[in-house]
């Protein structure tokens, strides 16, 4: 009897220790890929276009609910050569996977918070942007994750460790020659409600040598969190998204195009705000076409546009004008605008109450949670309405991959998932439902693979659904 008792204790202890170890060490990359990509292939997407290759856990994250404005993030990018997928997590882990979902290496960022992720043009290195007291841009070798170089942005943007207002590299792009462009950003919110924005655009060569900065001798006094560069590296575009215009005196325009040498502004545009908004903001844009001939984007107020490379307006469309219904001012926020070959694709997200985004609205905005496709002449091609917020949009010439997350109005979790649409007709090819909101999306350059990041969410009844997970799919058309 004593032996049985001892064996039982040892068994329970081993299970306890094992569970504890699994919980503690079970961070990103611990799940196995789907065997042969076959077992779940039929169940991944409804029409069979999306076949699940791997589902990999990305560790534990704080679970948010519908009442929170920001949400869990996931950074995804396929290498330009289509051989690997890089994943950055909310916990500052970076994973490199092959196309079968095997984790080639993983690395922890440490003190910094991951804010940007981008492959170099030759696919041989991975660029990481982080927010920390140093605000580093870090270059990692794709082979083994070894650090090749790092550059700090604290010298220009400053830091206040007491208030924890850290600089960070928030966007990274590369041109055909392998030169790297990065946006450094820091913002300070004062107790009286004022904001102070600081931004810089950096240019580096592939070895990490700094080639230039914009502006050369001062910081951008505007919220800049996006950059786009043409293939030749001759033109860069960025937009401003200022919550508070009080402290802004120099960079008051909505949209800027600067030369590739970062010497000066080629052109800029100031769009007057659409009532009831006080400012015109462009958060995830503008995007310049690879040949540098077109610039597109969508303002938060729902106006999308196409300019030519010289700053001439080709067309401007209002996709989601603010509305006043039952004495409530509501709007659907314009988020992404991207070029996909000959076409421009725009996304509009959730409906918000202008007075306070958490307050209810009598109806959903008719244009909310939708994708709009236009050709270069401004001809409307099609629109596809999704049930939830388009958290991220990844385009390829013929394929559009969308991460669909929360709908803060209907709170319907059935809409969560990774959606694949054909271009230019914007027709749904397939969707892979996820329990939690899908918060990140990527598509390989040849359009054969798609990836999404699912995040957990707490419903209003307290139930937690979904996991923080990477899902890799093969697109079979």
């Amino acid at each position, binding site marked *: 009897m004593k032996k049985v*008792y*001892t064996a039982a*204790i*040892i068994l*329970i*202890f081993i299970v*306890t*220790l094992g569970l*504890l*170890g699994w*919980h*503690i*060490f079970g961070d990103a990359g611990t799940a196995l890929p789907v065997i042969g990509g076959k077992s779940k292939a039929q169940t991944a997407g409804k029409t069979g276009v999306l076949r699940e290759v791997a589902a990999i856990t990305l560790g534990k994250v*704080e*679970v948010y609910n519908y009442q929170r404005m920001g949400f869990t993030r996931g950074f995804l990018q396929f290498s330009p050569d289509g051989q690997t997928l890089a994943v950055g997590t909310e916990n500052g882990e970076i994973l490199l996977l092959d196309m079968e979902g095997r984790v080639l290496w993983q690395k*922890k*960022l*440490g*003190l*910094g918070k991951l804010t940007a992720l981008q492959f170099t043009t030759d696919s041989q290195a991975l660029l990481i942007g982080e927010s920390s*007291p*140093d605000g580093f841009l870090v270059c990692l070798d794709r082979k083994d994750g070894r650090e090749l170089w790092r550059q*700090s942005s*604290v010298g220009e943007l400053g*830091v206040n*460790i*007491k*208030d*924890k207002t850290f600089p960070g590299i928030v966007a990274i792009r590369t041109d055909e020659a392998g030169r790297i462009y990065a946006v450094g950003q820091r913002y300070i919110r004062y107790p009286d409600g004022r904001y102070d924005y600081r931004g810089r655009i950096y240019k580096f060569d592939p070895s990490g040598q700094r080639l230039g900065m914009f502006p050369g001798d001062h910081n951008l006094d505007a919220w800049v969190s996006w950059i786009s560069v043409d293939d030749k590296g001759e033109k860069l575009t960025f937009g401003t998204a200022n919550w508070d215009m009080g402290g802004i005196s120099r960079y008051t325009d909505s949209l800027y195009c600067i030369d590739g040498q970062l010497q000066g502004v080629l052109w800029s545009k100031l769009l007057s705000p659409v009532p009831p908004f006080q400012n015109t903001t462009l958060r995830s844009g503008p995007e310049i076409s690879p040949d540098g001939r077109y610039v597109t984007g969508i303002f938060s107020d729902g106006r999308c546009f196409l300019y030519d490379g010289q700053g001439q307006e080709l067309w401007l469309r209002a996709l989601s004008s603010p509305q006043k219904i039952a004495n409530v001012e509501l709007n659907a926020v314009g988020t992404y605008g991207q070029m996909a070959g000959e076409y421009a694709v725009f996304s509009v997200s959730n409906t918000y109450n202008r007075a306070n985004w958490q307050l209810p609205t009598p109806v959903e905005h008719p244009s909310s949670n939708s994708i709009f496709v236009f050709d270069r002449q401004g001809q409307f091609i099609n629109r596809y309405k999704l049930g939830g917020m388009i958290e991220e949009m990844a385009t390829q010439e013929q394929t559009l991959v969308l991460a669909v997350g929360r709908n803060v109005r209907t709170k319907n979790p059935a809409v969560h998932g990774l959606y694949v649409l054909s271009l230019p007709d914007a027709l749904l090819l397939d969707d892979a439902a996820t329990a939690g909101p899908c918060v990140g999306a990527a598509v390989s350059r040849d359009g054969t693979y798609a990836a999404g990041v699912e995040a957990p969410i*707490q419903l209003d009844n*307290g139930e*937690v659904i979904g996991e923080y997970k990477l899902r890799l799919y093969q697109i079979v058309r």
Partner: protein
Amino acid sequence: MYNKNVWEAVPGDTWVHQLDVRTKLAALVCCAVLVVLLDSPRTLYLLFCTTLVLHGIARASWARWRVLLLFVMLGIWGSMISQALFYGQEPRTVVACLLSPAVPLIGTLTGGVYIYREGLEYGAVQALRSASMLSMGLLISWTSDPRQLLRSFLAWKMPYELAFMLITGLRFLPVIFQETAVVLTAQRLRGFEPLRSLAPRRLIQTAFQTLFPILARTLRRAVTLAFSVESRGFGRAVHRLGLGRWPQGQWFGCVLLLLVLLSLMVLKVIDALQFNGIRYFPELRRFYDLMKVWM
């Protein structure tokens, strides 16, 4: 558990048994500081596993493993359950609802009873601290001669009275368990079944009925011991047998261990300065990154 041999140190020929008692005490001190210093669950887990490995090297008997694991599990599960129920920090995620706030009276009064995921995690990590110390303490107790322990305390200038009490307490631990066994056996012979019912009132009654005889016997034994040591001149300054020479390799090992510990303490202070926004040293960024993951 009630077997005296389970608690008393027995001679052995393993590497752990052969270590100088001062080396073991130095390791115990390092472990004590580390469990306070470390916040990283993975490092605490590894530390705890290391102490288990040492028990394995010391070839602990099955009876000892049983005692060790039972105590460790009580600590881990107890801490996890209590923290899961009473975790008060934010953010916290409800894993299960034990009592809905909608339940009349008790639900309204308590505001609902929930199990919080973060509480479970926090409880487990806290339990690893106490489990590491328990495991390390038992290792030293099971593999070291109490007389050697007493001599090493005295060699390190610990007051004689304090060292004597410490060792006496250690030596009396098995006796207390033995006393418990005797009391329980005596009660069973009189038809008493301590665990017949798990009702709280019954359990409290059982505890009183068991603890009072043990306490009485322990006090009686303490009085006898006190008379005995007083009659032999307790506390009188007399020449006592010293310890042998501390093996040089072990001595260097301990110095190294203490230096590492000191460095970790300095790093922890530097990290705390950074975390609290007092001072950040950019040149130590690599250490900050490592500390974030491992400390």
